[in-house]
């Protein structure tokens, strides 16, 4: 009887718990592999956690959502958080567009909720915490290198409050000098529910993924609607890894998971609701290959005027260990790939360390004009002359539709330049602005002063009318699955240009004492005579004819006399 009671009680508690914990966590893992051209392959890991949460108390219950991030969001009143750590440069011209855009180095931007009291303080603390969490140099972010762009960024999820977006709740910073390595990957992997032990996460061996031409870690937090009416909101965490492998470094054109990651998929993550590998086989028609493992399904995606073919592998269904790959049937031909719709480059002009120019070249390959927003985040050690800003398209000057400029200030604020400009069809726009180099104090130079100072990449945002070469997710999508057949009115790309290095003129670092002494000597040179002139008066004095030689002679004479007397 008693035991039945016990059982009943336990059952009751269990039901109660089940009722209380209504939140559900959905974890999906996906891998998209896409051959970019004849010798590069793009693989993109996409881990998504959706967590239905109350508006507060994130740290309470979660099945798979990393608790630390929940605490962080609650503590700093974060609405959205986007972090990327990247090594290498995504070649938009040849490779098309990645699923997630990221600039070289570290990049972080965050939207704070509208009831945040001190955004600057929260931002500083948030970056410091993230610095510890991801072992990156985010602690070097402060108000001097943070900007709040007005046109370039919008919240990607739902946000409460009025219709208009107030960019003062946005903080953006980038660290172009950040070097991304294993020390960032390891803590990043720990945020995954299966902790890179099982499932697709187990492919991420640091020994292999740092051999790539381009690798980028991403962490994106936002709020999304659970249904069309948005009755409930989910907290969504996307963890992404983008890798571009070069067949030249791999040694062969044929690729497989074994070649990329040193191992195939060994087992599936128990916590994952789905675990899928997609391979883009569209290039099969021009560059035929054979899949080494039989796929579980075929997908044809018609999106924004372009048709793409995919094969699908379900990791859970396949059960045990397996590896997918591709064997090419023919020798590589010179593929004629048309360049992407829009791409951009950034470079420096001028010579010497006195005046220079910063140039961004934006190429529009589309058959109609494109409206783009160019965001330049220029460090204060370049003194910018806005009146020299010139936008030219094949020699003709172009007027920006909108221009927002927040001038920088020495040692306190970066320049923030945002230009909305309409680039005519099939043309190259050249945006140039001149600057002066700044001479810093000797203690402001880093230890390797002649290495140079970095200029972050410019960001060019554009809504593409076509989805050619576009792999990004639609704004309402959370998984790669959602990007199939997802035709929309426009496809947002945010292109990052190259980061640049400028070498500022340096003083002689070994000279402080000498310089202080010499300059003070010159000051004293003035002080002495002026002091004499103003405080003393002329008098005539009898000239003492005896100079030193006479004196010496007299002394010698005297001493000789004495010795002679003896």
């Amino acid at each position, binding site marked *: 009887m008693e035991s039945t009671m016990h059982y009943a009680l336990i059952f009751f508690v269990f039901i109660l718990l089940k009722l209380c914990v209504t939140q559900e966590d959905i974890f999906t893992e996906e891998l998209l592999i896409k051959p970019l051209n004849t010798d590069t392959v793009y693989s993109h890991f996409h881990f998504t956690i959706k967590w239905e949460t109350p508006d507060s108390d994130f740290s309470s219950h979660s099945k798979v959502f990393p608790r630390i991030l929940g605490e962080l969001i609650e503590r700093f009143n974060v609405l959205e958080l986007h972090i990327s750590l990247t090594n290498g440069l995504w070649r938009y011209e040849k490779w098309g567009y990645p699923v997630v855009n990221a600039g070289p180095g570290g990049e972080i931007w965050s939207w704070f909720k509208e009831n945040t009291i001190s955004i600057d303080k929260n931002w500083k603390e948030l970056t410091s915490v993230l610095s510890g969490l991801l072992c990156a140099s985010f602690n070097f972010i402060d108000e001097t290198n943070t900007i709040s762009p007005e046109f370039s960024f919008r919240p990607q999820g739902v946000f409460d409050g009025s219709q208009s977006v107030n960019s003062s709740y946005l903080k953006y910073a980038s660290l172009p000098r950040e070097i991304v390595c294993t020390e960032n990957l390891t803590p990043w992997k720990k945020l995954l529910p299966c902790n890179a032990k099982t499932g697709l996460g187990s492919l991420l061996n640091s020994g292999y993924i740092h051999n790539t031409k381009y690798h980028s870690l991403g962490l994106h937090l936002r709020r999304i609607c659970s249904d069309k009416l948005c009755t409930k909101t989910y907290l969504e965490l996307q963890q992404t890894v983008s890798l571009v492998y070069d067949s030249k470094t791999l040694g062969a054109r044929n690729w497989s998971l074994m070649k990329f990651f040193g191992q195939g998929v060994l087992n599936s993550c128990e916590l994952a609701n789905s675990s899928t590998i997609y391979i883009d086989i569209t290039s099969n028609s021009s560059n035929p290959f054979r899949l080494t493992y039989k796929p579980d399904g075929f997908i044809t995606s018609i999106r924004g005027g372009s048709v793409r073919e995919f094969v699908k592998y379900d990791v859970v269904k396949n059960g045990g260990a397996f590896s997918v790959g591709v064997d090419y049937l023919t020798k590589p031909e010179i593929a004629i790939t048309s360049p992407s719709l829009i791409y951009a480059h950034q470079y420096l002009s001028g*010579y*010497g*360390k*006195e*005046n220079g120019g910063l140039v961004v070249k934006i190429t529009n390959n589309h058959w109609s004009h494109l409206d783009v927003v160019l965001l330049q985040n220029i460090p*204060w050690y370049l*003194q*910018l*002359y*806005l*009146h020299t800003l010139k936008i030219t398209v094949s020699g003709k000057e172009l007027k920006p539709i909108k*221009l927002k*400029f*927040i*001038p*920088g*200030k*020495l*040692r306190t604020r970066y*320049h923030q330049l945002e230009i909305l400009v309409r680039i005519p069809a099939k043309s190259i726009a050249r945006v140039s602005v001149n600057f*002066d180099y*700044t*001479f*810093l*104090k*000797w*203690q402001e130079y880093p230890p390797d002063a002649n290495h140079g100072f970095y200029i972050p990449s410019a960001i060019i945002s554009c809504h593409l009318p076509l989805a050619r070469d576009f792999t990004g997710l639609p704004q309402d999508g959370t998984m790669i699955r959602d990007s199939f057949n997802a035709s929309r009115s426009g496809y947002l790309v945010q292109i990052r240009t190259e980061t640049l290095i400028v070498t500022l*003129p*340096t*003083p*002689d670092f070994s*000279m*402080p004492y000498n*310089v*202080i002494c*010499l*300059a003070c000597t*010159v*000051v004293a*040179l*003035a*002080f002495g*005579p*002026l*002091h*004499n*002139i*103003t*405080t*003393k*008066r*002329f*008098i*005539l*004095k*009898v*000239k003492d*004819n005896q100079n030193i030689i006479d004196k010496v002679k007299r002394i010698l004479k005297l001493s000789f006399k004495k010795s002679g007397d003896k």
Partner: protein
Amino acid sequence: MTKDKRNYQTCSSPWVKCIYGRLAFLCLAAAAIRYWLIFFSKYQSLIADHIEVSTPLNAWKRVKEGLYLFSIGINPYYGDMLHETPTSLFFYQFITESLGLSTGHIFIIFDIITATFLFLVTRQYMFMVYIEREENKSSYSKNIEEYLYTNENFRRAPLYVAATFLFNPYTILNCVGFTTTVFFNFFLSVFLYLLLSRKFFLCSLFLAFCTSMSFYSIILVVPMCLHAYKQFNGNFRAIFSMISFLVNFLVIMFIGHLLDKTDSFLENVYGFIITVPDLKPNIGLFWYFFTEMFDHFRELFIYSFQINATILYLIPLALKFHNDVFLLITALLYISTIFKSYPCVGDVGLVLSLLPCYKHLFNYSQQQFLILVIYIISFCLGPIVWHLWIYSNSANANFYFGVTLAFAVAQIFLVTDILFVHIKREFCLYFGKKSRIGGKEAILVLE
């Protein structure tokens, strides 16, 4: 006053001769040189970009940037590019947009007007010296004719001053490089003219303009009051000139406040001059000193250097040279040119052009040759080592620092030499060129 007038009438013979023709000729020739450099040679932008010519304080490029930012609705003082007061900016906007002249013409015209005013200033000064000579002739010692100005000196000095201003390379570069120092020099020359013409209200107004443009001119209040006191023999005028200066200055600041409601111009103009945040090299001593300064001593040395450039020598020199206000002004201008935080060749050009007023002292100065040589060498060597450092990477900052040090030393020698010779002359005027006491050889010493 009446006495002066009489003197002028009776002794005006040295000025009767028409020298305006020559002045006009000089002005035309100088304008032609400037015109050629600005409009027909390719050197204009090269000169304007040179650090000896354009400092962060006076670069025309920055004025253009400020006017542009202002025109698109951005507060130019929010950034770090503009270090001119709102009133100056308003003035530049007026002269560039309303006069309908190209920038080059405006700079040439202002330079020529400055030269004319300097000509008039020197004439006034020579007149004052003449009166002093005539009045004190009786008390002078015998056989000191060589120490006195000749009538020839009196007549020629204004032309010499104008010519030195118009043709010395420093002012030519300054004008061709489009620096706002051209306007500062203009205001300063008007101030000097009004001061020597004893129009104290207007004079204090122009001094207020100068002070609002370059903070260092504030030290000229002392000679102004001194002159007012001397000329009218009473405290009233001295105090009046001081008060009217303060009122004028405050009015200018208030207009600045009306034009820039945020008042950030105060920090961006005066804070910038005083705390020296931009360490771009110039011909002064500040840039490398504060580049290499240890952070915890920075403030101490900023205070001491600024005091050194302004009030350190002000009182002693004012006490010593209260008889000759113009010499006092020259010395003060010279010292602030050497020691100010952002000096440029325009400042040097102006003080150099005042030197012919003291032509009678040149024969006795001891370091003429040395000074001349250093001036020439630093003028040539400065741009060369700058090029080696910044463009060809084969020299470093020390080279340029060496040149600026030498230049500062030359200027210090020049000013101390002139002052030294001046007091020696004063002594000789009253005590003669005695060189023997009781049959023994004697020498002059400072004690």
